[in-house]
């Protein structure tokens, strides 16, 4: 509406300042992000192996991908991981952020505790969680044993392994998302809550009617980044399960790393990356459309 009324002089002024602000970043963006990404797209139609001359192979790489069981499996595993981690991770992080967004004694210590898994080295995290997940002497199965349950084959059952990885990943990433939410909550004016309190709103109402809509841009950001991150998951599976047992936790990122750097088939790996890209793109479009319900966010 507003845009229609804008005079062309104002628009020119906006253009001038807008481009001026963007320019430094955009030049770097072009050179260090867009150019490599386009190069990777070109590679995806070649038999590039990084170290020798390449030949164009048309869409052979893409055809090869969809006839490879391993790729289909990794694609499905990756989607499953995203389903397991994104909603839980985002909702838990938001709840924790709200819980921690108050001025009580020692709160910053607790916030830091939740952030600590984020900075703990992935190797240490994987080793400790592997011990927790041990079939026989592991802490989790010992605890389950006390209440007459289990043992659960956390990492050795092909149906459960990905769930176990997902639990660990949500735990590790909680502090990361919580921190972003906390920063978002700082922008919500305190008066809104005070006014609501005076009007007799319950805590639940305040959360749903004030907090959620006010931090919608933050939520959009956290959700989209969590989605992108989960579809590119690599470290935890690489260290903890190496994609196993069998191929139950093999992800697309792991698949393309193996092809690009271990099997010397970078062209093929780039094709896998672009299939992943299209997948992320579609999923995030869906997310974008559904979040439009909360207002124009993207």
């Amino acid at each position, binding site marked *: 509406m507003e845009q229609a009324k804008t005079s062309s002089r104002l628009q020119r002024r906006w253009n001038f300042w807008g481009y001026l602000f963007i320019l430094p970043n955009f030049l770097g963006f072009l050179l260090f992000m867009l150019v490599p990404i386009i190069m990777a797209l070109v590679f995806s139609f070649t038999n590039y*192996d*990084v*170290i*020798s001359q390449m030949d164009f192979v048309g869409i052979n790489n893409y055809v090869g991908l969809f006839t490879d069981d*391993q790729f289909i499996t990794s694609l499905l595993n990756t989607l499953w991981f995203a389903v397991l981690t994104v909603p839980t991770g985002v909702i838990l992080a938001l709840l924790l952020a709200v819980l921690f967004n108050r001025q009580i004694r020692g709160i910053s210590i607790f916030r830091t505790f939740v952030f600590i898994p984020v900075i703990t080295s992935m190797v240490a995290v*994987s*080793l400790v969680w*592997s*011990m927790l*997940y*041990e*079939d*026989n*002497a592991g802490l989790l199965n010992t605890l389950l044993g006390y209440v007459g349950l289990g043992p659960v*084959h956390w*990492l*050795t059952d*092909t149906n459960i392994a990905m769930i176990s990885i997902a639990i660990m990943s949500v735990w590790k990433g909680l502090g990361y998302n919580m921190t972003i939410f906390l920063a978002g909550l700082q922008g919500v004016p305190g008066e809104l809550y005070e006014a609501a309190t005076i009007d007799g709103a319950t805590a639940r109402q305040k959360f749903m009617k004030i907090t959620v809509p006010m931090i919608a841009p933050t939520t959009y950001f956290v959700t989209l980044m969590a989605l992108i991150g989960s579809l590119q998951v690599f470290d935890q599976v690489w*260290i*903890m*399960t*190496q*994609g*196993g*047992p*069998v*191929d139950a936790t093999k992800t697309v990122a792991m698949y393309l790393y*193996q092809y690009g*750097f*271990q*099997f*010397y088939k970078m062209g093929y790996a780039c094709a896998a990356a672009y299939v992943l890209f299209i997948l992320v793109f579609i999923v995030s479009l869906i997310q974008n459309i559904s979040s439009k319900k909360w207002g124009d966010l993207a």
Partner: protein
Amino acid sequence: MKARKLFALVLAGALMVSSFAACGNSNSSSTASKTESKTESSKAESSSAESTPASTGGEKEKSDAKLNIWVYGWEKASADKIKEDTAAYKEETGVEVTVTPIASDSYSTKIQATIAGGNNPDLAFVDAGVQSTQLAAKGKLLGLNQFGVEEYKDKFYDSVWDTMVYKDDVYGLRITSNNLALFYNKELFEKAGLEEPKDWTWDDLREAAKKLTDPDNGIFGLDLPVYDKKGGYTWNWLPFLWQNGGELLNEDRTEAVFNSPEGVEALKFWKTMVQEDKSVPLQAAPTGVNRFTSGITAMVIDGPWNLNPFLSDPNFKDKFGVAPLPKQKTQATVVGGEGVVAFSNTKYPQEAYDYLVHLTCSDFVHTFWENWITIPPQPAEKDFYADDETYGKYLQVFSDQMEYSRTRPFTPSWPQIEDTLGIDLQGYMFNKTDDAQASLDKAVEDVNKILAEEDK
């Protein structure tokens, strides 16, 4: 002419002055500590530095070549010795060698990237066979036949020599080697009333593993890397296939042949121990060999690199022993280790070759064996560790195994073959299918597909 020389001299002088100035500026305390450590180690090692023979020998004109070599890991002890040796080498031949330590994690990615960017070194340590075959097939390595490398063939075990051969040319020399043997926990053996392993067959191994297994105390008889897939699965299963008279690929390495009755037996043997006897723990990878030192597993099949960690543990150092792998139809174990390769784009091929020979065939190579606790790849040095009080009795077992140790059938796509094989065989182990023959047939089909692509 004269003027030009003069100019060069002035320039060199200026460079030297400026480099001295740079030294003066640098942190004095760190310089002091560096010199200190150098003199210390030079005292200890003066003998080995002196005895370095020149591979070419004789009165040769000194070269002004500069070589770069990448070594993995940074272990102070060997790093210092290499520095000393390169100084001596320069004195003798004029060739200036710069040794750069590179972290071993993702080492091959760095090699790959730097080759693409044209910044690769002249020489590098590589995982013998795995990386060398890949790079040789892409034409990135210097073929050594042209320099008459054949003269050193007799110096090495055949299995070790073969790892560096691709399509009739030799692409490097081996600096270290190792193989797999059976580590066992003496205390747990005693508790189970078992004799220490001697001339074992598969049945002996299986029976012992069963007897050692004690579910009430959470003890397993044997650790097998059933979960491992970064090549570990194939690496450990191959000896069993060979012991049973099976082969992975045909002689030309163009076709997979392991779906033979021998292969089926070897695969079933593992699964019986895992699923039926429950004498092998099914566990995720990161805790690996630590189960053995923690007394959770009584036996583990592993390599000599574990000796240092095992022997440094005061609670464990007297509790374990090493035995050869069991035999079935024949004796066999698998050989691994490092090789040194030269890259085809080096400016100084002859000098690179000479240094490669110096590094792997002179006495200086002993430094690597001692510091890395690896097995000499040279039969003449079979008893290299025999008199060593700490390592001797263990390493001799590995050294004796070298006679019947075999190389993996490397092809340019070996890493992919290993990965596929691991996934297919694990599918059987983790109960996705219960048909060993079908699993092997599928694995053979997958491997053949990879091999067929190689020729394209």
